[in-house]
């Protein structure tokens, strides 16, 4: 690296007051027209805008806080911001799948709608709870009984899973 290159790399640091010239660098800047011109240029650039009307940081901060109060920082991940939206969506999707299955069930296959209809408790469930129940049914990969057994007809294992599903 030539002395010109090394001086050029240090000019900004010295102009910003973060360092000072060594004796040899100072002598070089005084003697080298190119480096002297760069030194003057960087000095001028570091002063650009210094005569501009001063901005008031306190006023800036006040305005910022007011605006942030109206439009709060976007700091919460989207899946946590609206906790129930995803559950409702999931329930809707599950209901759509169920409806499709029912509509396309071959003759002789159990009618899921009839099976579900027997469990009137399902009407009272929220979207998330309904989705959980449907997951339990899907996990079994077999349709509920056509003739509609009540909750009392479930095995204790099935009942436990169903309740776990309801409790989320």
């Amino acid at each position, binding site marked *: 690296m030539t002395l010109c290159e090394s001086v*050029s790399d240090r000019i*900004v*640091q010295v*102009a*910003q007051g*973060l360092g000072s010239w060594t004796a040899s660098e100072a002598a070089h800047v005084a003697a080298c027209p*190119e480096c002297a*011109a*760069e030194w003057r*240029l*960087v000095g*001028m*650039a*570091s*002063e*650009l*805008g*210094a*005569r*501009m*009307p*001063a*901005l008031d*940081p*306190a006023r*800036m*901060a006040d*305005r*910022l*806080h007011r*605006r*942030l109060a109206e*439009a*709060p*920082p*976007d*700091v*919460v991940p989207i899946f946590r911001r609206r906790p129930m939206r995803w559950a409702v969506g999931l329930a809707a999707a599950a209901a759509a799948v169920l409806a499709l299955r029912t509509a396309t069930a071959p003759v002789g296959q159990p009618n899921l709608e009839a099976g579900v209809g027997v469990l009137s408790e399902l009407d009272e469930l929220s979207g998330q709870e309904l989705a959980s129940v449907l997951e339990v049914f899907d996990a079994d990969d077999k349709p509920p009984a056509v003739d509609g057994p009540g909750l009392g007809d479930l095995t204790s294992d099935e009942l436990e899973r169903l309740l776990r599903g309801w409790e989320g």
Partner: protein
Amino acid sequence: MTAQTDDDLVGAFCAGEELAADELIRRHTTSLGRFLYANGASASDVEDLVQEAFFKAFRALGGWRREASFKSWLFKIAANLNRDQFRRRKGRETVPLDDHDVADVSDPEGESGAKDMERQLMTELERLPRLQREVFLLRAQQGMEYDQISATLGTTPGAARVHYHHAVKRLKEKVQ
């Protein structure tokens, strides 16, 4: 408070300390305003652009990945806003500093010479390609290192160095 780094203050703001924002604003308002002014923003637009840059930065702090310093990120937002403003107006709106904008000085002749030099430099800066101008200002005016500049402008440190030297060469020829 002043002993805290920008990163500390960002963390404090995200944890709910509103005063941390005040300190970050105090630290960066003047330098950001001067950068925008030298980068072509009209004197009348500077305050709004600075305000908007802070607003956008603080609103998005939760999603900021901290790949660069807060200053680099803030200046990146401000530079983008300035470019948008420039495009909307189809060019720079030149608003020279009038006498009433300038603080009283005890050395009117020296001040007049400084104003002339500043005007000359501003005119030549305006003629530089955008990236050269922004790299030059971030280095010569703001004192940023090349890695900070590259993070701010989305280029590489090597390319930033080349842009800087091109800008210096051109400005040395024009500004006497």
